[in-house]
């Protein structure tokens, strides 16, 4: 079970958080302009990386804030947490 450093609250147990899938996928501003394929790309296609992955998490049993996290899926090491709208601190 991880310990996650919520950018608003500090270190907390993983059980207080919920994962929310891949980060940095922006909802299209003009969905009506998109073809079925383009919309499907946004809607369904997600990466499942073995290694460094950028993810959304929410401190659901805490401050209820969403934030981003960089996690290595091979060993669950968390390399960074950062607020929504911020650029990832590592590549």
């Amino acid at each position, binding site marked *: 079970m*991880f310990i996650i450093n919520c950018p608003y609250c500090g270190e907390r147990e993983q059980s207080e958080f919920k994962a929310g899938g891949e980060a940095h996928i922006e909802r299209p501003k*003009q969905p*009506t302009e998109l073809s079925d394929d383009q*919309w*499907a790309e946004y809607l369904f296609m997600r990466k499942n990386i073995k290694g460094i992955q950028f993810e959304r998490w929410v401190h659901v049993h805490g401050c209820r*804030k*969403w934030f981003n996290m960089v996690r290595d899926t091979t060993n669950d090491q968390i390399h960074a947490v950062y607020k929504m709208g911020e650029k990832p601190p590592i590549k």
Partner: protein
Amino acid sequence: MPKNLRINSSNFIDETTRVSFKFDGKTYYGFKGDTLASALIANGIHLVARSFKYHRPRGIMTAGSEEPNAIVQINGNTAYTEPNVRATEIEIYDGLEASSQNCWPNVNFDIGGINNILSPLLPAGFYYKTFMWPASFWEKYEYFIRKSAGLGKSPTKPDPDLYEHKYIHCDVLVIGGGISGIMAAKTAAENNYKTLLLDEKPHLGGTTIYQSSEFNKINNQYSSKWLENEISNLKNIKNLEIKTRTSVAAYHGYNFLLARENLTDHLPLNKKKDKIRQRLLKIRAKKVIAATGSIERPLIFNNNDRPGIILSSAIKKYSDYYGVVCGKENILFTNNDSAYETAISLFNKGIKINAIIDIREKVNSEITNHAEKIGIKIYNSYTIVDTSGYRRIKEVSIMKLSKDGQSVTGSKIKIKCNCLGISGGWTPAVHLFTQSGGKLKFDNEDNVFIPSKYPSDQISIGSCNGEFDLNTIIKNFNQNIKNFLGIDKTSFEDLKINSTKEILKRNIWLLPSDKAIGKCKPFVDFQNDATAKDIKLALREGFRSIEHVKRYTTTGMGTDQGKLGNMHALGIISDTSGVKMSDLGTTTFRPPYTPLTFGTIVGRNVGEFFDIFRKTPIHDWHVDNNAEFENVGQWKRAWYYPKKGESMFDAVQRESKAARDGAGILDASTLGKIDIQGSDASEFLNRVYTNAWSKLAIGKCRYGLMLNEDGMVYDDGVTTRLNENHYIMTTTTGGAATVLGKLEDYLQTEWPELDVYLTSVTDHFATISVCGPNSKKIVKKVIPDLDLSDEEFPHMSFKNAKIDNIKCRVMRISFTGEQSYEINIQANFGKSVWEKCMEAGKEFNITPYGTETMHLLRAEKGFIIVGQDTDATLTPIDLQMNWIVSKKKYDFIGKRSLYRSDTIREDRKQLVGIVTEDPREVLEEGAQIVADVSKKPVEMLGHITSSYFSPNLNKSIALGVVKGGKNMLGKKLFIPMKNKIISVHVADPVFLDKENKRLNA
């Protein structure tokens, strides 16, 4: 009790306290401190089980948690019964009843033993190959397999014991209280680390505590004496907490560990009562020191599984620790020096050693020379090729090993014995280390896997790190612990150590016999009866990955998790396939390290504490008025209110009729309520609902449908505009939390520019819905000041009001199709307002109704219930609710998905009304709908989602989803049931009052 199986008074057994226990129905005696295994051996009993597949007689083989054979059921048919208890771990107490598992009718005469004779027919994968086909026969096979195999019986009565969970945070966790763990705990605590030391045994000290040998001395004392002194000084150390009888079950990432603390299992029955039996410790440690020791390996040779064949180290523990003699005629069979320690220790106690058989050539070490000097007969470069004795080993046959160790030569020598100690070297207990994500490396010299890469702040020390002699252990300890704890000095740096070091090693994973392997039974996994032959067969049949071989042969899959035989399985695979051990990798060790009871896992979360349940402020009234309840999410909702002698059907029919004829009252407090405020609240609602919200006037209500981004219906409810920038949204009872979560997600991540604030107020308000033709009169009596005229207060509008000076919100909205009013009032006034409504409604026959009637009434009107009529595969168009999807809005959640090629298909499942040809016939919810029953396979068009008998229409009504149902109005379809086929017609889903006249009646 047979005489002379007890020797000298042991320090660890209380020989003044006699304990009586039962095994397989017979009464025996042991002493306080005995395990069931040591007490049985002291009574001359070795045969305690039958093996899983061949039902071969099996005896106690070890003295610890790695025991594969001596698995017993304790406490018979009582609620306290427990299967799969290791006799080597359970401490005896007065009143303990244990029985052999996996043998019928009894351990000495076992019908399943026929499998042993049939064993050529039971090779690896036998169960897979034989019983899998035809699939329809599996149920029949299973019955027989379970009856003749089966490891114990699960209890049938509720567990009467108490369990609990406890969180522990510490700086340093030390796992294992042997010599390494004790030194580590002392060092950490003395350096101001808050330290926790755990050991699975009743006493600290590991194997060193009974190591009284000339060959293991510290500061000129026996290592046992030295350690005893260290242990007694531990209690003076601050910062150190010690828990014995506590085994670590799981080691997760980020140094999170689970351990089971055993509190009462060793106590007599009358002292267990009202105490907590076991505690699950949830430990978060900053640093972890694993000192988990090592497990002695067996040797793999023909017929190596007879009762009386015991690990050499276990024989030593039984005699040195428990004062129990395993056999009077002993042979030790080894590939290393540690069996010599056993031999010398037994010899010193006057126990007869008939021979040591050593697969190595003559060794010239201190300890082997000593064994020779005291006159023990040693056969070097010999191996056992066979054993005999059915219920107990009687004799071994040995032959000279060839140079390469692959065959035997010369003549056979037979030696009598009734106990054979075997030692194949030591396997570091790295299970917890690998669970934590650690990577192992293979050490070719000792043939062991040892920790290589630590995934968290942890270290392995002592024999679990591949250090086997006292000198190396202490030298490495001083060096490694200083680095790990960041300290300059330990108090163990000036110790004077005398210990022997092994100078010659020889390892043969599968020892040869004079017979061909096909005629031999060299067991690798004793519990699952997997032999070396099975592993070779699996390889011949094409299995390569160790994980596959393991599953196919069931090696390592028993309750002992392959603690004994896993290394040999790997070794045999490596030898046979030519792949190096280091390239082969190991199987994954999964938690728990030793089995946990369900009681420990669930702790206090049983019975009424199993899950949280939520009650409305009016709950007590429902209880007082005989309501039956149903669970909706975590809520207990009043389901129906049966009167004396009424069935559920009767009650619902009565309630439904009363609500339409006179007045009904429903507790709707469980509906989710979200308070929405901010200057962009209207815009926000526009984006989350399918319909338009900007023009909703203050004081008006509107029904809304919420979609997922994939276009599927997600939730629905009525939202009211309380003020310019203030709305109150209602959600379904079950969806409240997820809707709030979803809205927050969009607000924070997609639309952070919107000025909107969401607050859950579900629990803040009680919601009382009064409906029916008399509802207006009733509400008028309860709130006389409120103008209820249709002009002033029309359908789908809201008013602020006061009841006895308490503010409330009244919405005129309807889920039943009747004129109805919803009073929302501060929760703690809920019950009194409900009672006021009941009082005011008395003259109009006001009838409380529950969720079942609510469902029936809304079905008469064709209103959907999200989650009952929908299942995340239906769009609003599929529901024939096109009217609620705004054509004008540029965007809302899910809009783009409504015209994907898949969602615009005409033949999607669509919601329709279904009426039966026989109006008395009520369909089953979930029943399949078909058009043609004659054509096989029958095409399923859809299913029934809601079905009731409507008392107001006096006929059966149903809703269902049907492929292309939208264009099937009037079409005849069929519902095939088990013993009949029901004819139905597709109908308009609105069955009652299509013109909505009743809303204003």
